[in-house]
């Protein structure tokens, strides 16, 4: 609904950041996964965001104001896998090396902080939009 547009924009940001957090959690959970359906170790994944395009049916005169965000795509990180010397591992090759996922835990933790803060920022924006709406109702009081 149009009267809650800024709330919907914040809601889309909240949702997008939650999905990003899911991807980061998957990367952290699979940091040592050596078997995947595609074969080989787990590939780290990352997301890109895209602006939600204004639908043409709404007769808003400022088209660029107030559009939401969504996850554009979840892409595999193409960086090479890490080869670790680990002879007792079930997936070790004859030289004792195992291919480990290309997940960098430090990087994932940093992304996690960004996602958390972005989520908080969207919740704050939602709260501000809400209090502006409530303040507007006080105009006539």
């Amino acid at each position, binding site marked *: *609904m149009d009267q809650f547009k800024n*709330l919907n924009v914040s*809601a889309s940001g909240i949702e997008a950041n939650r999905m990003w957090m899911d991807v980061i959690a998957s990367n952290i959970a699979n940091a040592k996964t050596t078997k995947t359906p595609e074969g080989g170790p787990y590939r780290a994944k990352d997301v890109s965001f895209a602006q939600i395009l204004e639908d043409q049916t709404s007769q808003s005169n400022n088209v660029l104001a107030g559009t939401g965000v969504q996850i554009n795509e979840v892409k595999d990180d193409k960086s090479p896998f890490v080869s670790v010397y680990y002879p007792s591992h079930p997936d070790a090759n004859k030289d004792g090396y195992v291919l480990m996922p290309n997940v960098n835990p430090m990087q994932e933790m940093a992304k996690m902080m960004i996602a958390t803060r972005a989520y908080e920022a969207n919740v704050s924006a939602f709260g501000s939009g*809400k209090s502006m*709406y*409530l303040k507007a*109702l006080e105009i*006539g009081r």
Partner: protein
Amino acid sequence: MSELSPISSIGLNPATASPVGLKPNNIGSESFKKVFSEVIHQTNNQLQDADKTVKDFVEGNIGNPQDVMIRLEEAHLALQFTVQLRNKVVEAYQEISRMQF
């Protein structure tokens, strides 16, 4: 919250509520009763939406709490708006009924 569903029947004929939106340029051409009953209908729908979202969440059909909270907030704001509108209408009515000649 389901006790709120009969809100649509306070002397207003639901059949008069049309899907015409509240566009500023045709407010003057619609009867106030029609506009007001439409607002009440929308609010009622929003409350029922929120109700359904809470139910879905409790039953496990929705996994994330933010959807529920956002629906609830929207319903809350819509209700506040409608209550404020109603206050204004009652105020106007009382103003007229106090008129002395």
